[in-house]
């Protein structure tokens, strides 16, 4: 995937600052003790998000800000069926917030998050997984 110079620099800066590419691409258990990433969510409006997604080995879930269909049609079922289902992504903070709130209702939480400079919004890369104990987990 071709990205312009600015986005390439942004990507490289982000990669240097945080284990972003590892989160995106790794199929190995992560440092936070959670299993491998099952799905990767990325906001297609941002070149840097598309670039990172292209490096991920996980099941890809493109969004354009709105996470309704992603959660309703996919994550709701996956989180109910598979306690080891881990989702990572790179999205705006509001998309992450919406997913985080839905995740809390299903016994998940955001286990890592970090900001990535992008234009026009700051993006966040994040990981949602089941922890050892969850407030508000659904039965």
């Amino acid at each position: 995937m071709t990205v312009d110079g600015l986005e390439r620099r942004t990507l490289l800066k982000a990669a240097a600052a945080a284990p972003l590419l590892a989160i995106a691409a790794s199929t190995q258990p992560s440092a936070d003790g959670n299993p491998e990433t099952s799905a990767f969510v990325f906001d297609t409006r941002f070149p840097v998000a598309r670039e990172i997604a292209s490096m991920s080995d996980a099941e890809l879930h493109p969004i354009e800000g709105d996470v309704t269909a992603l959660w309703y049609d996919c994550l709701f079922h996956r989180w109910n069926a598979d306690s080891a289902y881990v989702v990572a992504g790179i999205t705006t903070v509001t998309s992450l917030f919406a997913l985080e709130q839905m995740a809390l209702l299903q016994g998940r939480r955001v286990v890592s998050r970090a900001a990535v400079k992008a234009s026009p919004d700051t993006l966040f890369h994040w990981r949602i997984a089941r922890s050892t104990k969850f407030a508000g987990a659904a039965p």
Partner: protein
Amino acid sequence: MKLPPGVSSADFNAALAAFRRIVGDEWVFTSEEDVMLYRDAYSPMKFQEDELLASAAVAPSSTEEVQAVVRIANQYKIPIYPISTGKNLGYGGSAPTLSGSVVLDLKRMNRIIEVDEKNAFALVEPGVSYFDLYRYLKDNKIKLWIDCPDPGWGSVLGNAIDRGGGYTMPQYRNHFDAHCGMEVVLPSGELLRTGMGAIPGAKTWQQYKTGCGPWVDGIFSQANYGVVTKMGFWMMPEPEGYLRGVVSAHRYEDLAPLIEALNYLENACIMTGFPDIASPLLGYPPIGQVQLFNEGAKAFAFDDEHKGLLAGATLGYSPALEAYGRKNNLAYWELWLTFYGPLEVVDAQWRAAQRIVSSKVDSARYRVHERLSLPIDPARAHEYHEPELGVPSLRVFSIGARSPFNPTPSAGHMWFSPIIPRTGEAIIEANRVFGAAAKELDMPLFRTFTLPACFWERAFIFILATPVTDDPDVNRRYVDGFKKLIEIGGEHGWGEYRTAPVFQKTVMDVYSFNDHALGRFHETLKDAIDPNGIIAPGRYDIWPKRLRNGG
């Protein structure tokens, strides 16, 4: 961990141990990591000393467990703060009104107990979200609609007892009014059923609201007299069709007669859906279309002349701005009128609406924005404002991305939402009063002119989102300014319909007729019903005796 006031560590730990015996170890949360999940994500006091925070949380799975938890709380005088799904964002989230309270998290109680399609009602527990109920209806091919707020992630029961609103017919979109029958765990642990539910073996609990004698349901909304564990709701039969027509008017002076027409159409049940008011000239989209505008297709892109005229307008008006609107075919005002029912009926209602509006605003123009035969393919709901088609959504969070309509996304918001009369004059007066006050207080609330929301029949909500920032000093200034706006509203006879804990005292102080007779009555009830003051102390400024007046 911050202990509840007046509770010793020994008593607190004894209560937690008792809670664990009731609900199981895994459903009592005391670690900071867990408890912080209950903080208000939009709190303006985040990370400050006075942020409202829980001490622990307990999550029962049944009414019986709630009763047992409440009895233990009574024994040890532990304040407990019930939440449903905890999504009351902008109005306080899941954080308690009293720091140190134990959150009573009811989201495990997520059973849909009954949906009766023929009689169009549902009976649900607090943990049932709008998405849950929607999914249940779809999975079971039940031809009923939910009425949900936007976003639709919250609890059906929780939103109703917070007196939230939605987007369909008025009898359904006023969520508290749409309820029929409650089950409540009283502070003593005793179980109460209201309305017809007070009859053992009741056959009409969800079909007749009031039962006989005093109707007490209202005291369990925005209050702290019990824990509501079941609630019935009347639901909207899936309509055959949907029509949204837009009325356009080009004169500033048309606002008042347009509102008169709107009121008549709604009060006479000629218009049956959600009404919306917009102004293309002033750059104000209809509430139900904000996401669509924000997503770019219809974003306002004003030329320099237009921007200059807006900046020079007073209360949204100048002769030059009005002339600009005429020249460029930009309506000063639009009414977005919606109709549900068979298409032959909604077509006739729309024709009648045009005739009635024209009798008050002879130059009004009309267009049909949407005319749908229902049901539509769920995949197409995205093309519309989903809640108006009975579909819950999270799309409002796509607004966070920067766009021409939303150039500076914030870290959250506090809803300033006074109720004002449903008149054009009141809209202009509210703009005058709050606009001047916000300018003096340096509150970033207003653009050129603000239009109210029509969630309720008979009155407007002059709703404004006060931003929460990452700067504690700015947030504190906004909180102080918000309180001042509440007081100014009170001086003009306007009061909030709902508010976050940080503002509840200021808001309830406005309801001060006859030396605060209403507040004193609330406290009389509190002392009688909850003598130990364990349920949500301070909610809507109703404090138990032991914590009253700074106690």
